[in-house]
């Protein structure tokens, strides 16, 4: 069993919702989530952003669903920190 402690995502998002609203939509998923979002490029209708989520056990699917629900898409997972928890799973 493993737990995701940190994940960095390359995200393409519309201008609206804005960066704050997207970060909040992810942060509200769990009380221990810490989300930072940096817009790296701005196009006519879209923005590229690097979203970093930190937490004790990040629900990857939940994060992706929250991002998708805000009209954004995940291009790639750029970095992860994962720890083992209860030993190897059989």
């Amino acid at each position: 069993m493993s737990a995701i402690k940190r994940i960095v995502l390359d995200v393409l998002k519309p201008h609206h919702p804005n960066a704050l609203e997207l970060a909040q939509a992810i942060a509200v998923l769990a009380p221990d989530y810490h989300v930072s979002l940096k817009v790296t490029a701005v196009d006519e209708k879209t923005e590229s952003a690097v979203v970093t989520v930190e937490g004790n056990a990040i629900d990857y699917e939940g994060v992706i669903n929250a991002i998708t629900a805000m009209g954004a898409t995940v291009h790639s997972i750029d970095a992860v920190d994962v720890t083992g928890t209860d030993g190897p799973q059989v």
Partner: protein
Amino acid sequence: MMNWYRRIAFLLSITRTQGIARRYVVVNGFDGALTMLGLLMGFQAGGGIAPEIAFSACLGAALALAASGISSAYLSEAAERRKALRELEHAMVEQLQESAHTEAARIVPFLVALANGLSPLLVSVVIMVPLWLGVAGYALSQEPLVLAIGVAFISIFVLGAFLGRIGHVFWLWSGLRAVLIAILTSALILVLR
């Protein structure tokens, strides 16, 4: 979980339609008030009319304004939202079926249509209150028709003042400017009678 009010505000926000809905409320509210004023001035200029007939005529016009406002705004806004969604999906190189944008494209046209249709209806209903009181047999200080014309002018002033607040213009000046339009409309009706 967002409550419904915050959800609606969010959907209006991501589609940048708060301003459109607000503009529709004022513009069509003004339409409703001026239409009622026109009818009432016409009745008055024609020598007066029974409150029952005036009430029915005004109610018919108000309902027609509401139906027209709802249907026209829905058709145009639904087309606009679909176009905006297609353009966004093209820019994202992705279908956005599960996103708030698709939800907004479905719900926002209803909200804008309701704002567009209900505002003239509500303003008209307020203006019609004296007529309804007359029909119901309440003793009024003036003729119901005259009172309704007075309420129409007050409604127009309030809408104008509201418009002034939105545009950060002095509310009294904005309200008086709206009343001036109502006076000119009334004068035109009286002259062309």
